[in-house]
C-alpha cells in the first residue's frame, strides 16, 4: 500500500494488488473501491462549511455514510475543514500519478 496523501487527521492509501483505496480515519481504516471514493469525494464537496460559521449549522457536526451505508462518521468543524483539504489533496495526487503514468 502506498500513501497518496496525508492531512492533519486523515491518510489515504492506494493498494495496487487489490486495486482499491484505503482511508485511515482517527479511529478506523476503511476500504473503498474507486466508485466509493468518488461518492465520498462528492459527499465531502457538498459539506457547507459556511453553515458552520453563520449559525445555520448550530451543532457544527456533519454526518457521512460511506460505502453503501457500511460506515457512519460524524465530523466536527475542524475535521470538516481538514476533510476538504484531504480530498482535494488525494485527488491531486491521483492526477499527478496519472500524468506520470502517461508520460512514462
Amino acid at each position, binding site marked *: 500500500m502506498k500513501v497518496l496523501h496525508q492531512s492533519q487527521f486523515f491518510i489515504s492509501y492506494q493498494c*495496487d494488488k487489490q486495486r482499491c483505496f484505503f482511508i485511515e480515519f482517527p479511529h478506523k481504516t476503511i476500504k473503498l473501491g474507486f*466508485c466509493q471514493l*468518488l461518492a465520498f469525494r*462528492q459527499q465531502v464537496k457538498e459539506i457547507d462549511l459556511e453553515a458552520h460559521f453563520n449559525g445555520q449549522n448550530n451543532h457544527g457536526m456533519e454526518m457521512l455514510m460511506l460505502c453503501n451505508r457500511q460506515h457512519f462518521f460524524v465530523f466536527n468543524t475542524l475535521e470538516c475543514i481538514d476533510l476538504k483539504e484531504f480530498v482535494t489533496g488525494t485527488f491531486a495526487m491521483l*492526477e499527478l*500519478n496519472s500524468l506520470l503514468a502517461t508520460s512514462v
Partner: protein
Amino acid sequence: MKDLVRQKLSIHVDVMDLLNKQIEKEAHSSSAYLAMASWCDHNALSYSADFFYEQAAEEREHMMKIFRYITDNGGTAFSPEVGGVNHDFKSLEEIFETALDQEIAITKSIHNLVGKCRKVNDYTTEYFLHWFIQEQMEEEQTMRRALELFDLMGTDGLGLKLLDERIPQIRDKRPE
C-alpha cells in the same frame, strides 16, 4: 504505482464534475420548458404549448445522454434537483426570448466544457460533446426563427393566433 483512476474511469475527474453540472442545467432547462408549455396551454396557444412540451422532452433526452455517458465510462452521475422554475410570463414573446437566453446559456456551458476537455486532454469527452455543439446551434436557430415571427407578424388581434399556428414550422429548415 498503478494508475487505478484511469483503469476505472475514461473521463477526467474535473470534466466529470462539469458534466454533472451540465446534467443539472439540462434538467432545469427541461422543467423551464414545461412551465412555458403550461403557460401557453392556459392562454389557448396550443401549438406553442406542444412545441414547448417537445422541447422539455428533448432537454431531458440531452440530460440522459450525458447521464449515461458518465456512468458508461466508469463515473458517478448524480440525479439533479430542480428548483426555482419561473411560471410567470407577460407574453408569448417574452417566453421565446427567455427560451433563446436559456439556449445561449446552455451553449456557453457546453463550450466551456469543451474548453476544459482540451485543457486536460480529455479527447473522448470532447468528441462526445461535438453532437451537443451542433444541437445547440440548431436550438438557437429555432428560437431566433420564432422571434423573427413576432417582428414579421406582430401580436395584435388575430396576429397572435396566426403566429401560434406557425410555431410548429419553425423547427423545419428554411427552404434552400
